[in-house]
């Protein structure tokens, strides 16, 4: 059944690519708007041979990784502190609920004024957007701690730090990992958006440049790269999640079945 699924999936992908080739060739859409798959593949091959492409990819990945790392550290630390200190959770709940839905792109004008097209602009947006994903998941995770385990640890005389390390963290980790996976995807979206709109160096800016210079196949090639990057990040985040939680019921159960 697994082999059949892979075969069906490959067939679906092939059909998708063939459709991309056929639709413009048959004149259903203008080739100037939507070039056939082969033209996009050609443009992609050209891009791969171009040093500017690789430096743009590097810039995008730098913004993504740095922003994500800051957001994850800040989110986890803030989440644990807010949960552990008495009353802090009640006191911060309304503020978090208010700040979280603020769209990060609202900060674009501010980022432009403060940092122009520097990496810092990208980081401001990426960190703001992905911080909430991690924070909220950490808060949920800490809330899920078994009160009996907590009381047991307390009665054995474990200190605050030991309880955080041995009781709270293992319970919260699956939630935190989900948060990191969501944040990784959001961070890529915001990194590319910042480059696209603000003009910070990276794949997003290359796409904007291709669009304004009417290089349509190149634009599609870069969008394909952005999609593949998103795909790789998703797969990578899932793999990390599975490794980090190898001991956890949800993952062990998956393997056993």
């Amino acid at each position, binding site marked *: 059944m697994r082999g*059949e*699924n892979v075969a*069906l*999936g*490959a*067939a*679906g*992908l092939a*059909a*998708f690519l063939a459709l991309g080739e056929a639709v413009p060739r048959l004149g259903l*859409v203008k080739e100037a*708007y*939507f070039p056939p798959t082969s033209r996009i593949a050609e443009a992609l091959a050209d891009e791969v041979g171009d040093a500017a492409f690789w430096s743009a990819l590097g810039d995008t990945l730098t913004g993504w990784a740095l922003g994500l790392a800051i957001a994850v550290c800040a989110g986890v630390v803030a989440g644990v502190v807010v949960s552990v200190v008495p*009353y802090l959770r*009640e*006191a*911060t*709940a*309304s*503020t978090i609920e*208010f700040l*979280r*839905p*603020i*769209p*990060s*792109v*609202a*900060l*674009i*004008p*501010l980022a*432009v*004024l*403060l940092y122009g097209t520097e990496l810092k602009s990208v980081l401001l947006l990426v960190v703001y957007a992905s911080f909430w994903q991690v924070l909220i998941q950490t808060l949920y995770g800490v809330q899920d701690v078994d009160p009996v385990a907590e009381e047991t640890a307390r009665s054995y005389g474990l200190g605050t730090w030991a309880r955080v390390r041995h009781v709270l963290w293992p319970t919260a980790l699956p939630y935190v990992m989900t948060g990191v996976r969501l944040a990784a*995807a959001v961070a*890529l*979206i915001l990194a*590319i*958006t910042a480059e*696209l*709109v603000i003009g910070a160096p990276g794949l*997003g800016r290359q*796409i*904007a440049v*291709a*669009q304004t210079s009417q290089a*349509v196949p190149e*634009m*599609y090639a*870069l*969008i394909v790269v*952005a*999609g*593949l*990057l*998103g*795909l790789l*990040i*998703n797969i990578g985040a899932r793999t990390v999640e599975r490794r980090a939680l190898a001991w956890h019921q949800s993952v062990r159960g998956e393997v056993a079945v």
Partner: protein
Amino acid sequence: MIGRFLAQLFFVVALPVVLVAAWWAASDGSTDPFWPPLRTILDTFPDVWTADRLRTDVVPSILRLLGGYALAAVVGVALGTVIGSYRRVRAVCEPVLEFLRAVPPPVLVPVIMLFAGIGDTMKIVVIASGCVWPILLNTVEGVRAVDSVMLETARSYGVAGIARLRHLVLRSASPQIFAGLRQALSIGIILMVISEMFTANNGIGFTVVQFQRSFAIPDMWTGILVLGLLGFLLSAVFRLVERRVLGWYHGLRATTRRP
């Protein structure tokens, strides 16, 4: 009772008050042009966001958002139900859907500009094309997870067609569908703002960028506040709707959790 209520009220209000006060105090003597005093921002607010501007900028933005979001919801739930119901269709579509979902939605703005020009259609299509993926994929997951015993029961009672879809499949998938709708809402707001920042002659995103380009900094800050308020209000409305529609589900979960 009243004491409990007051304590709760205190917890809700305390930190926001402290933060706003801190912002007010820290920025009060500010001469940094990019960080104007909060007093100035709030003074500017009523002058900028007049009833006239609400009509010419805020309403069009919200209409575009709702249009694109509704389109994405209809398409996402319909396609997701079809894909989720048939195992083979799902196997064929899965890799393509995974790829399409992984494409960061904002890069679609230049593509859709090619096809749809720079008018409202473009913005609605951009919003819909970004929002549709979380809804679609969550619907697929939800439909796939419909209890097989219930499906068999429905079949043996002769419940089929629309009735089966409405009372069983969509109902039991609705918590998942709402999770997708929630994710789509924040993507929708992002795309609304970005599509207006690219090319537009009205809308909140357009206005905020205009302020920034003309160095009307306090005005720009009020725009950021408006976008924040809008995001907050929409998510509050969403929560209300969700609580109404999924009331049965949350009730069910609460009773199973407390045996």
